[in-house]
């Protein structure tokens, strides 16, 4: 039933990207995002797409997953493209139908924005598809640790994130189970009048929340019973290791960024 939820879904594997340190992947994606926003020429976007294909090849992820991950935002992208194309009035007139006039600058603007969004989702999907959520939060915790001095609770934020991530599959399973149980009692989630359907959703949401609160309480008790008292002095079971592979990747991204800088207009 939830076989198609891909956002934030990790696909175990042994590719170059999988073997990279989560910190270097985070840093690279961060740089890539800056590069994507910096770019403003056709040549630049051409190069970026070439880079994207290269990263995709290094990830070993089947294209179906990326397509699935992209699908939810596809409508958003098309929508922003249309808005930009219609309301930017720069350059030569391309076509004019009734009250709508399409300018060259508008189409260009729209395409650039669409490319940006696509590339953003593409790179971040690859990040989450090739990095286990645990590694990702560990990396985030380390990156935020220096900010502790300014009162940012890095450990607690990371803990909250990893607990949330840990329970997403559980919640999905639970949802699936309750949907099945209520369907077996004749509830219909996809057909029927609005009233019937909202009743069915109440029958799903109430048990789901009750269980989620119960689970949160149990988890809190269990952690307290085992003496958990915050991040102070805690050691890690799993260590992130930075290798040559990571330095190489980050260097490549930096060089890529510098090259692209010269393609700016």
């Amino acid at each position, binding site marked *: 039933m939830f076989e198609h939820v891909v956002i934030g879904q990790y696909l175990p594997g042994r590719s170059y990207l999988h073997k990279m340190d989560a910190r270097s992947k985070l840093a690279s994606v961060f740089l890539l995002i800056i590069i994507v926003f910096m770019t403003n020429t056709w040549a630049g976007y051409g190069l970026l797409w070439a880079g994207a294909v290269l990263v995709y090849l290094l990830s070993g992820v089947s294209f179906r997953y990326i397509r699935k991950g992209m699908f939810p935002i596809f409508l958003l992208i098309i929508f922003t493209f249309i808005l930009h194309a219609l309301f930017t009035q720069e350059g030569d007139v391309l076509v004019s139908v009734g009250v709508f006039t399409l300018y060259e600058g508008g189409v260009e603007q729209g395409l650039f924005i669409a490319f940006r969004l696509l590339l953003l989702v593409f790179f971040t999907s690859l990040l989450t598809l090739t990095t286990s959520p645990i590694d990702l939060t560990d990396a985030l915790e380390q990156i935020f640790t220096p900010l502790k001095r300014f009162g940012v609770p890095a450990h607690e934020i990371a803990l909250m994130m990893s607990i949330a991530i840990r329970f997403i599959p559980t919640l999905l399973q639970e949802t699936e189970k309750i949907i099945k*149980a209520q369907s077996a009692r004749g509830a219909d989630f996809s057909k029927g009048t609005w009233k019937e359907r909202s009743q069915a959703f109440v029958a799903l949401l109430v048990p789901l929340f009750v269980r989620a609160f119960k689970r949160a309480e149990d988890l809190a008790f269990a952690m307290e019973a085992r003496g958990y008292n915050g991040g102070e002095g805690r050691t890690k079971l799993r260590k992130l290791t930075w290798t040559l592979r990571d330095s190489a990747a980050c260097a490549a991204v930096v060089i890529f960024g510098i090259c692209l800088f010269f393609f700016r207009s």
Partner: protein
Amino acid sequence: MKITFDNVHHIYMEKTPFETTALKDITVTLPEGTCSAVIGRTGSGKSTLVQHINGLLKPTSGKVMVGDQIIHAKTKRKQLKLLRRQVGMVFQYPEHQLFEDTVEKDLLFGPKNIGLNTTKIKKKLPELLELVGLEPSLLERSPFDLSGGQMRRVAIASVLAMEPNVLILDEPTAGLDPKGQEDILTLLKDWQEKYQITMIIITHQMEEASRLAEKLIVMDNGQIAMEGRPEDIYAQNQMLQQLDLDVPERVKVLKYLEESLGIRFSKWSLTPKEAASELNMWMKKEKNHV
């Protein structure tokens, strides 16, 4: 209703790296009006198997026949509606599905959904609650204020209220105390006998299966390892041990008595009380002979 599985395969999350084949080549018949038990170790595909019977899952290939309705990979949702009306299903930990603010409303949720006459059913609710061993006064209470065992009973009653012709129970006694387990099994058996419905019960315990079922289906690794009458299955001791299953203690005792005394018991599913009375009768008869 008779239930037939014909060459059923089920694959979860097909064509992804998470693909799992949960059922392989299942062909089996569950006779009408009797109780069958599905037994096997964890992950062997028991829940997957029974969820095909009311169309919650559809076979990846093969077909399932329930009465005269056929479920295969391309069956439409609409056609499943009628099926849901006839097949009741109690899930593992059914108390998790309670949601209304009173027990009464929760019990009426199913009957209302499938279009039964709720005023008529409402009148029968106190009786139904008593049948599952609860006070009728609980009807006005919130289901969330009940104890775990009481919630389980309400959840089971909420499926019984739909008056299904086929009743499926996925480990109905999991996590209950021995007394609670015993009570639930007894009420299910009584219900089945009273209405002559087709019942399918999933369990981990041979003990439980032996109490209720006239037919046993032993699953292993997505396939049917053994099927048949309990007596015949108990005879295959070695095979059972390979599957981490054991002949129920109760049956072992009866078997031992048969071998050492020469008495014949009427069936293997006797409760200790019934067995004792049969033994008593036999002893009296023997005395007369002598």
